[in-house]
Structures are given as structure tokens and as C-alpha cells.
């Protein structure tokens, strides 16, 4: 009797302890709502700093839909678990973050919890933002709270069970949310450390450029080895980089500030928005990122310079015989890409471009189909798309030709599906018809160039 009572007591204690532990891990209190602060209550210098930081964080890319109001949210973000919609981060009191105190904002950035105490999905990259300092969070808060408030209620996420239960996120955080991902390194320069702070924190480069595990978390052991961003592959930006000419700090700095580099080509896909935002960032911060990333890229074992790469491609003319691919290249591509004029006014010599050398043909196919659209209101490289001119088989012929002519990599096999998907996702926005073909082809279509 006494014995079973003790066992019962132990069991009860364990159950209670487990429940308490569960509550401690999962439950987060609401933070009191405030009246939306007046824009005048924020110092202009703080707002300005916040604008630069928001550009570094690429916030508008996810929190704005094409043609929509800035920061009003609503962008579908496809994940293996379902589609998550970005939220309204304008200071609207009811549908935005107007009633969030600075403390509530900082908690969201650091712990991924909203003002009401709900766990946020890690599509909001708080696994990086957790590294952002209080001071920077304050400036970001000041910037966002002085934007135009927009009434736009969040769209409900479309997630499968059990992922639609926010309690699951608490478990995810236990496994993957660590604040120690960034440490200053006293043996490195102040600039390197600044770059590391930005890259590992607010700029969240790894969110696209690091591969993810089955639970959608970054595999930090292979950080920067290449990942995915929408329907593009985000190249490896460490020693595994497919770039034929090695990146260095100067090249990175130029590329990040201009969106192209004569030895590397043009930033496209989601990276186009990143470099567009970086134009509004202090040059010193971009340079710091370049210095840190040059170290991450490291020195590839077979470093070659531009002249060597181009010379090798020239001598390789004989590699691909006179073929259908060669004929397409001659008429459709060579007038820009074989002109000897470097970017941005000429096309890059494809021997220098990462796209034909990459492990996966997706980016090359995307660009051949949809081209490089001009960035509205900016001087930027352009290229016509060939979706209307070439069928899938002809695209494949051309892509195979480019691979054999301009790289020493083995041929890509069986990428018919890649072409089909690229045609669906990349060309939907090029076709403007009344309906219904103008609707995004799938939830994976971000509806932006």
C-alpha cells in the first residue's frame, strides 16, 4: 500500500514536472499591447540607421508582395511542410505590429515569438536574427514603426498536421535555435568581425546558401555549401563554389554593390533583390561582408585567373562539334556572350559564369527561358528570354552544349523535369493575359522577378 503510494506519488510528480517543463518550454506570455507610438517619437538618425539595417536584412523581400504595399506581408513562402505567408510588419494597430512594444519586437527577433506569445515559424529567420544586438533591434523597430501603416490581415498558413500546431515550433527551437552561432574573433580584424556579425545575423546569408535538414533547419556543419531559394539554386559560397574564377574581397564588394561583376556575371533570381537592397547600405558594411565572405570562400585548390579560364574556353572550341547547340548559340547567344564586351553592356563570357559550371542546371535554365529583366528605374544588365522561341528539347540541347563548351564538368543528365518546372515558374510572370493564365502557376511562384 505504502509502496504503491510512493510509486503513485513519483508518477504524479513526474507528470507534474513534465507538464511544468512542457509549459516552460512552450508557453510564452503575451507582452502588453501599447498604443501605436507616433512617428515623431523616434529620432530621425535612429530611423535612418534602421532603414539601412532593414536593407541589410532584406526584410522587404519576404514582407512585400509584387505590386503590394511595402512591408504589408502576404508573400507565400513554400516549404516542404506547406505554405507559410509572410506577415504585415507595418505599424497598423490591428493587422500589423502597431501595438508591439520595442521589447515585443526584440523578443520576436531573438526568440521567434510574437507579441501575443505565439511561436513564429522559422521561415522568419530568427535563428540568425537572434544574433542582432539590442541597439540594432532598436533602430529596426524605429524604422518599421515609422512606415506607412497598411491594413492587411495575415493570410492563414497552409500547413499539414502536425506542422500546423505551433507547439511543434517550440521543439524545433529547442533543437535548432542557438544564440552562440556568432562569436567575435579577437584574432581577426574589426572589419572581419563586423562582416561576420552581419552575415551570421541580420543579413542571414545562410538561410539560402546553407543546405537544410529534414526538419528545415540549416545544417551548420556544412554552412554555405549551397542551398535553395525559391526556384533557384543558391550556389555554394565556400570552398565548394562553382565560380570558375575565385572570388576575392574586392570582387565580392563590387558584385554586392553593383549586382554584377565582369569576372562573375549578374545577380539574378532572389539575389537580385538582395543586391538591390544592398545599394542602400553603407559602403563600409558591404565591404565588411565582402571581407568576411572572402574568408569563408577560402582559397580553392585550383584557383585560376580570368585570362586562364577564358583561354581554356577558347581552346575548347573543338570540344563540342558543329551541332544544333552550336548553331543556337551562334545566333541566339554569341552576339552578346562572345562579343568580347564585358558586362554590364555585353554578356559575360560563359566560361566565367557560375551557371554552366554549377552542380545543377536550374539557374542556367531559368535564365535561358526568362532572360534577365531590367530592374525598374535602374541601370542594369538585360537579356531576352527564349521561352517563346525554344521548346524544351531545344533548351536541353543548348544547355548541354554550354556545359560541354564552357566547362570541364561532366554533362548534366536527365534535367527534362527541371526545364518543365522552370517553364512553369519562371515564365508565368512574363505572360500577361487577362485570366486565368496570368495567375501564378503554383504556390512556389513568388510573383516577382
Amino acid at each position: 500500500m505504502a509502496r504503491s503510494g510512493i510509486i503513485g506519488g513519483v508518477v504524479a510528480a513526474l507528470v507534474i514536472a513534465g507538464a511544468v517543463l512542457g509549459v516552460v518550454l512552450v508557453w510564452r506570455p503575451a507582452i502588453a499591447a501599447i498604443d501605436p507610438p507616433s512617428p515623431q517619437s523616434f529620432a530621425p538618425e535612429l530611423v535612418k540607421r534602421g532603414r539601412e539595417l532593414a536593407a541589410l536584412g532584406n526584410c522587404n523581400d519576404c514582407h512585400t508582395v509584387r505590386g503590394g504595399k511595402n512591408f504589408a506581408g502576404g508573400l507565400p513562402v513554400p516549404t516542404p511542410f506547406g505554405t507559410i505567408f509572410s506577415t504585415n510588419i507595418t505599424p497598423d494597430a490591428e493587422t500589423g505590429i502597431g501595438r508591439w512594444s520595442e521589447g515585443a519586437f526584440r523578443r520576436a527577433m531573438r526568440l521567434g515569438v510574437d507579441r501575443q506569445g505565439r511561436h513564429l515559424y522559422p521561415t522568419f529567420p530568427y535563428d540568425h536574427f537572434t544574433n542582432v544586438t539590442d541597439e540594432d533591434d532598436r533602430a529596426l523597430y524605429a524604422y518599421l514603426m515609422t512606415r506607412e501603416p497598411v491594413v492587411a490581415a495575415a493570410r492563414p498558413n497552409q500547413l499539414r498536421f502536425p506542422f500546423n500546431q505551433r507547439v511543434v515550433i517550440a521543439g524545433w527551437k529547442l533543437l535548432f535555435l542557438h544564440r552562440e552561432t556568432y562569436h567575435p574573433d579577437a584574432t581577426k580584424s574589426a572589419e572581419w568581425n563586423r562582416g561576420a556579425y552581419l552575415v551570421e545575423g541580420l543579413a542571414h546569408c545562410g538561410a539560402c546558401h546553407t543546405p537544410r535538414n529534414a526538419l528545415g533547419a540549416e545544417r551548420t556543419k556544412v554552412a554555405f555549401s549551397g542551398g535553395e531559394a525559391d526556384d533557384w539554386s543558391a550556389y555554394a559560397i565556400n570552398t565548394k563554389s562553382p565560380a570558375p574564377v575565385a572570388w576575392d574581397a574586392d570582387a565580392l564588394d563590387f558584385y554586392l554593390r553593383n549586382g554584377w561583376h565582369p569576372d562573375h556575371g549578374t545577380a539574378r533570381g532572389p539575389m537580385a533583390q538582395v543586391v538591390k537592397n544592398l545599394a542602400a547600405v553603407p559602403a563600409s558594411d558591404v565591404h565588411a561582408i565582402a571581407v568576411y565572405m572572402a574568408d569563408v570562400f577560402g582559397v580553392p585548390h585550383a584557383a585560376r585567373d580570368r585570362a586562364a579560364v577564358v583561354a581554356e574556353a577558347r581552346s575548347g572550341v573543338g570540344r563540342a562539334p558543329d551541332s544544333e547547340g552550336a548553331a543556337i548559340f551562334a545566333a541566339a547567344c554569341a552576339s552578346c556572350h562572345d562579343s568580347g564586351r564585358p558586362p554590364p553592356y555585353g554578356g559575360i563570357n560563359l566560361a566565367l559564369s557560375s551557371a554552366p559550371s554549377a552542380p545543377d542546371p536550374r539557374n542556367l535554365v531559368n535564365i535561358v527561358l526568362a532572360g534577365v529583366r531590367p530592374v525598374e528605374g535602374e541601370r542594369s544588365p538585360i537579356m531576352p528570354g527564349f521561352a517563346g522561341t525554344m521548346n524544351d528539347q531545344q533548351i536541353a540541347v543548348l544547355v548541354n552544349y554550354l556545359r560541354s563548351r564552357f566547362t570541364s564538368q561532366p554533362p548534366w543528365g536527365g534535367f527534362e523535369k527541371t526545364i518543365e518546372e522552370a517553364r512553369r515558374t519562371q515564365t508565368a510572370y512574363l505572360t500577361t493575359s487577362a485570366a486565368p493564365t496570368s495567375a501564378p502557376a503554383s504556390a512556389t511562384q513568388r510573383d516577382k522577378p
Partner: protein
Amino acid sequence: MTTLKVNGQEHQIEADADTPLLYVLRDELKLNAAKFGCGLGQCGSCTVIVDGKAVLSCVTPLLLVEGKQITTLEGLGTDEAPAPIQRAFMEEQAAQCGYCIAGMMMRAQALLQRNSKPTDAEIRAELAPHLCRCGTHMRILRAVKRAAHLMDTAELLPANQGSAR
């Protein structure tokens, strides 16, 4: 030898497979509406319609259009019986020097075949690849709207219209 179907007629062409379509249209078939502007696919003045889609003929090799239906501006209408798109551009006086206009009309035609009631934003987005240095952009936009209206009110059209579609 390549077989080209241009404006409903078949032609046997001797040029190499990698010859740009534009050169064949202008130099061999003497169809001079499509213009050589930049030769890089960046200005739009060489645009023709291939199987219903606007295509930049200066960067399109012959082998990609073999057997497809190619339509040039000459295939849409004539001096006596201009097509709606041509009538609309004339009525709006949308051309100044006119160099870019044939290409503009062809892409607008392809748009209107697909979407008979485009919005202003859709017309702007569609014509974005075309450059005009005279600056008649507003007239061009009006002309495309007018053409859409003309196509919708078919009784206004001469009897032989639409044959090129």
C-alpha cells in the same frame, strides 16, 4: 535547306541553320518591316510573331523556326486594308520616326490575340522589352487600346481582316 512558313507562304531557304531569322526575312524574302536595331535582342525593333508568340528575330536562328508559322507586319494587313493594329497606330499617329513601331505592333498584336482586353499595366509590361527614342510612348499605349477596341467591334473591319492569324 530550310523550309520557312512566312505569312502563309512556304519558302525554301538555303542559308545556314545558325542564320538569324531577321537576315532571311529582310535580305532574302525582302520583308523589311522587321528592323535591325541592336542585333542583341535588346531593343525589340526586329520582333515578329512565331506560332502566336512575339519573338526577337535578330537572335532567333533559322533552325528554331523551321516549320513554324511566322507572321511579319506585312502579313497582318496592306496599305489598302490595314489590320486593326495598323489602323489604330495610324489613327493615334503613334509613329514619329517609326523605326521601333513595326516591332511594337507585332508584340501588341501577339498580346491582343492572347488577351483581347489588356489593362494599361499589362500593355506596359508586355511592351517593356521595346525601346522608342522618339518618345511616343503615350500614343503607342493609346494605339494598343484602340486596336483592342477595333478588334472587339469587328463590323468596323474590312472583310479580309484577321486572315493572318
